[in-house]
């Protein structure tokens, strides 16, 4: 094993896949000469040259559409968005073109393409730079949506995404790129759509994904000291969702809290809460709780951010509510 940053894990995944398959290439704003706005693609231009590591102008709709068309021809583009907020400009090509191509062409053309970049709030950046897109894209049939929380998962899942024959939305975070974690020396793949139990526990199941997983780990540590044993499920993929893993866990713990960095309405947490009342109703000893961002646009001031984001005390309260210990 070796310790790497999140960005290095992503880079290793891309480097290995580009060495394995000449049809894989990377394009996006600042990915080549600048070595990546967040240094994910550092050194890749040197290794692969300007044919395969391509700087684009600031034209998300245009370069995303070009990548989608290239994927229809059997190439395997990795499209880097500086953040997913900017990818809203490219949503037509992701949702109307890539996600629907296979179906609308009656199975004739498919889009083996990865869309990746920073997602979710990343500090005092204001409302337009701080959105989480898990539920947006999870809503769309034809896409797969990956939300890694560790360098290990990021590398294995990105390799799976690049090899996948369907369009994949891969959600990272500017706040995670410097996170460190252990990964094996050699190549490995993590299958898309399989959740991971990151912490074993017996009293409550906490379901989460992506950057906010850190809050789950921190809360679980504190709760352990109070004698409350939390099981933490990292979904890792939010389309498809590994419902089986969640239901089986709740059958053991009989309680569940969903922790999500984004807004509450039509969210991953509401989907999971529905699923549990439908398929684990008789096992539940308390209503499913959730902790999400406030139902408001993200704001600039630190006090407003503090109020908007899910945090450890709110999660602890929610866990205790399922145990009737508030």
């Amino acid at each position, binding site marked *: 094993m070796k310790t790497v940053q999140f960005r290095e894990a992503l880079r290793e995944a891309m480097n290995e896949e580009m060495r394995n398959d000449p049809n894989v290439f990377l394009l996006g704003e600042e990915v080549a000469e600048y070595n990546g706005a967040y240094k994910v693609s550092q050194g890749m231009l040197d290794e692969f040259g300007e044919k395969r590591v391509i700087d684009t102008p600031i034209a998300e709709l245009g370069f995303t559409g070009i990548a989608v068309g290239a994927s229809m021809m059997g190439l395997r583009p990795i499209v880097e968005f500086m953040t997913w907020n900017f990818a809203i400009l490219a949503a*037509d090509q992701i949702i109307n073109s890539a996600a629907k191509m296979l179906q*609308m062409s009656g199975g004739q053309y498919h889009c083996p393409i990865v869309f990746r970049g920073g997602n979710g709030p990343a500090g005092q950046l204001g409302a337009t730079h701080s959105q989480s897109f898990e539920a947006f894209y999870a809503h769309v049939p*034809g896409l797969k949506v990956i939300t890694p929380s560790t360098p290990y998962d990021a590398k294995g899942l990105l390799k799976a995404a690049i090899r*996948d024959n369907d369009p994949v939305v891969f959600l990272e975070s500017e706040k995670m790129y410097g996170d460190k974690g252990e990964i094996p020396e050699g190549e490995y793949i993590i299958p898309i759509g399989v959740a991971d139990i990151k912490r074993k526990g017996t009293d409550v199941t906490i379901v989460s994904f992506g950057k906010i997983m850190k809050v789950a780990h921190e809360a679980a540590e504190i709760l352990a000291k109070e004698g409350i044993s939390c099981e933490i499920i990292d979904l890792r993929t939010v389309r498809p969702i590994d419902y089986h893993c969640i239901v089986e866990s709740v059958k053991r713990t009989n309680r569940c809290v969903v922790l999500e960095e984004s807004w509450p309405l039509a969210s991953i947490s509401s989907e999971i809460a529905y699923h549990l009342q439908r398929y684990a109703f008789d096992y539940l000893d308390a209503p499913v709780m959730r902790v999400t961002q406030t139902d408001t646009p993200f704001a600039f001031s630190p006090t407003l951010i503090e109020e908007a984001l899910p945090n450890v005390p709110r999660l602890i309260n929610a866990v205790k509510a399922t145990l009737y210990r508030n």
Partner: protein
Amino acid sequence: MATKAVVKPTKTTKKSTSTGTTKFSKETYIKWYTDMLLIRRFEEKVGQLYIQQKFGGFCHLYIGQEAIVAGTITASRPTDSHMTTYRDHAHPLALGTNPRVLMAELYGRTTGCSKGKGGSMHFFDKEKNFMGGHGIVGAQIPMGTGVAFAEKYKGTDNVCFVSMGDGAVRQGALHETFNMAMMWKLPVIYIIENNNYAMGTSVERSTNVQDLSKIGDSYEMPSKSVNGMSPEAVHEAISEACERARRGDGPTLLDIRTYRFKGHSMSDPQKYRTKEEVAEWMEKDPIDHCLDVIKENKWLNDTEITDIAAWVKKEVEESIEFAENSPYPAPEELYEDVYMQKDYPYIKEY
């Protein structure tokens, strides 16, 4: 109410055939005539069937614009690719897709060219490199450019033809894409099927820059206007553009001036243009023109001309018979062709 825009056909003498100096062969004219007649008769029938409510959805006819696809196909290679808008019936017909699978697609049948999942606006035929049929105005512009990107990446000398209406020129996607296509010198040929009306809004009422060939100027893209009622003019312009693209010199923009004899879609009362304007353009019908050239040169006798018409009629009739006798997709077909992954775990509770 805004004044009706008046758009004049390109100034040519009516039935100007100038056969003595034609650069094109008998075979080419017969191909143009046959292809265009098939498209015309197919779509006339489609219009009738639509009114009879044989199938639903939107339906955008190409009638009047046939010289563009006819001239493009004779100037291109089978290995080139084509991508267009939702006005997409003519392109696969000109490329040789069997009319039966196109009619079946209109009927929403499983034997359709997109298995009944795409409909009128989303025809595809991978065998002919016909890459759709796209319903969002302008979406095909970056995608088709991506096809050209892939050709260059793979080192072929194939080109991609990207067709669009005059309305699509106003989409941001076009401008973003033109910039990259020129910078990367991609082998792509942009064809504006300029029928002067974006649905009901004339070019005059949608822009300050009414000469659409100038749109390429900001990107230093070679651009020209072409008489779209003339397959000869289209063929020549496309040939020149293909040469440029194949030798690695990048894209061309062709503002091909044409006219749709029918409405934007089947539900268009056409109050934005005069009957006189339509009549004036119909005088320039490219099918009549090709037939005149063929007759003047005595390339076909009356019987042979009748035989072509009979063949076309039979093709169209058989396509209807084929479509009407084809099955609708079974309900479980919904779960096919959404993912390449065969065991994708759909939520099957709904």
